[in-house]
């Protein structure tokens, strides 16, 4: 696993957006071999999405052969509800780029058979050859997508009841009225995310500090589901200084020193991103 520490939210967003852009460009996707991207919602990825839109508008990045799979969606909210994840993705990303509608996959929280919807979602991922890069965030309780504490680390896409803490955290998007917040959601499983060939997690803010510490300094534990990234061959966490507040000084110094070595090695653009992983040996 690599840990990249940057100063603040904006620097983290820039780094991740740049990373995704370079990965897509190096992959050079075509109609027969598209780039499959997993995407999150929430406040963490907004800066990244804004930057990706800028890259599209400046001509540096095209989404023509990019296929996306979102992590989750509420059950029972109409698709065009202002708080649905469909609306979030449209407003923050899809409205501004050249992605094809048929390449966008978001779970349908109003499907007549939710279990079938979940199974079909997994099947769709398999049909396009699996996910190349899964972007994600982390909750204060260390959850990835809606895989709350206690979720099986081998879980797949399914219906989940939301934790009370999550419902409270979401109430701010529903006029502060807990009664209006959906109680169920469809979510990809921990294993669904970890099946991707690469996982990139964004973590910013002091309120995520404990979760980050639990997920990378302690064991793989279903109480902190992001900790499953420790078992992934190609995991990357990008975080800001505030979120490192609960890490050991030794941990922070270690990852910063590795990166320092990197910068010296990849001072020029000659080394590809894949070579970095080869050198570091995650």
């Amino acid at each position, binding site marked *: 696993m690599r840990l990249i520490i940057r100063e603040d939210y904006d620097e983290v967003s820039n780094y991740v957006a740049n990373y995704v852009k370079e990965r897509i460009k190096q992959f050079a996707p075509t109609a027969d071999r598209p780039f499959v991207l997993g995407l999150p919602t929430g406040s963490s990825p907004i800066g990244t999405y804004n930057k990706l839109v800028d890259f599209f508008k400046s001509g540096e990045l095209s989404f023509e052969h990019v296929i996306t799979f979102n992590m989750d969606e509420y059950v029972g909210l109409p*698709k*065009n509800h202002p708080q649905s994840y*469909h*609306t979030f993705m*449209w407003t923050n990303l*899809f*409205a*501004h780029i050249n992605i*094809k*509608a*048929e390449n*966008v996959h*978001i779970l349908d929280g109003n499907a007549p058979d939710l279990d079938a919807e979940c199974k079909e979602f997994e099947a769709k991922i398999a049909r396009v050859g699996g996910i190349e890069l899964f972007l994600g965030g982390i909750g204060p309780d260390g959850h990835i997508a809606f895989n709350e504490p206690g979720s099986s680390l081998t879980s797949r896409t399914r219906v989940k009841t939301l934790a009370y803490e999550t419902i409270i955290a979401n109430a701010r998007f529903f006029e502060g009225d807990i009664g209006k917040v959906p109680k169920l959601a469809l979510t990809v499983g921990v294993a669904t995310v970890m099946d991707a060939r690469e996982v990139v997690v964004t973590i910013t803010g002091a309120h995520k500090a404990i979760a980050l510490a639990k997920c990378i300094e302690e064991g793989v534990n279903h109480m902190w589901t992001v900790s499953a990234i420790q078992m992934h061959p190609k995991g990357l966490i990008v975080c800001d200084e505030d979120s490192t507040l609960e890490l050991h000084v030794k941990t922070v110094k270690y990852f910063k020193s590795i990166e320092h070595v990197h910068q010296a090695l990849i001072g020029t653009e000659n080394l590809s991103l894949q070579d970095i992983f080869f050198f570091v040996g995650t």
Partner: protein
Amino acid sequence: MVATASSSKISKIVNARLLLDHKIVQDSYLWFQDGKIIHPQNLFFDQHRDADEIIDAKGALVVPGYLDIQINGGYGIDFADNEGSLEKIQDDINTVAKGLLQYGCTAFCPTVVSSAPEVYNKVLPLLNKRKGDAKKGSEILGAHIEGPFISHEKKGAHNQAIFRTGKNGICEFDEAYGPELMKGSEAVSIITVAPEIEGVIDVIPELAKRDICVSIGHSAATISEAETAVTKGATLITHLFNAMLPFHHRDPGMIGVLGAVDLPVPEDPLRHPAASNTSPYRNKPDPRPFYGLIVDGVHVHPNSVRIAYYAHPKGCVLVTDALSALGLPRGVYSLGGRDVEVDDNGAAYIKGTNTLAGSTITIDQSVRNFRNFTKCTMVEAIEAATLHPAQVLGISDRKGTLNPGGDADLLFLNDDLEIQRVFVYGEEVELHKNK
């Protein structure tokens, strides 16, 4: 929503600054299809459709088309003129409707000054609601009938020989205007009456019930007579300051309605101004009516415009009150059968007198003047010619708005609020620019 999806062309406007939700918004797009503004999210997720046509606004301000709810004619044509065949009158109306598109006026209320019953019987059927068209002309929102139930004292350029009272109630009105009045807002959108005229106050609720906006004006009403008219259902004041008693500090007259605090608060926000900092209640519709303002700088001194605006900002509606001389060179023209002369300032006076008879100002020039006179924001200036007149007529869901569901009547403006492009129901109007 629609049961079957339309397969017609979807247009998307990019690189625009849109007037949305009382703000100028940058990174947003405007989508329209079948002449209506749409929300593209559903099309994207459900039908996998993208835009067929991209319109590059190149940074222009994109705003709703202007509405003019008081305009008497133009290009030598007077809507109260009933001479000639029905065909000729229809052609004349079409000429004016077509010409108004050049000024960004995409919807209007043809105004008919005080006339005899024969005139109304002949012209009102031709002024019924009619959909706008980029080639054929601006949308007709129904007629604005100004008088004859108005004050002799404040006749302006109207012919007082035709004035009458309403002492026999609503049937006097039906007799004066003919069968079109029964059609309510299909034919007549606004009626201007003077509340102190006998019988008028009691007829106001009847007219309001027919879905007609009752406007008070051409009147010598005192403040209490004017306020009574509002409690009875009047929701507009006709060209504030003109043809009414001047403001007096002990009896502010009709102008004083802008300072009213204890008018009954409306339950339904439809056809009432939104609450502002000067409203009696900040979380309920404003009980004061809307008010028209002619902002050619001649009818009302710019300082007076500013005072009125800041007293009641959400009620301000820009009107041109343009007469037949609009769009023509200086000279002598006709209005309601009388000779009027247009001077170099574009003001029209009854020939040989100092009595103002109307203006030759256009609605887009009105917006620019208004912004200069009051130093208000661009949004406020534009809303006074779009959102507010649409609210007067209760049609703010489809006119004067860029929200999904609105008619795609659009203007592209530069930063000086000059018109660059005009669209009616999503089709572009060919502009004759002299630049």
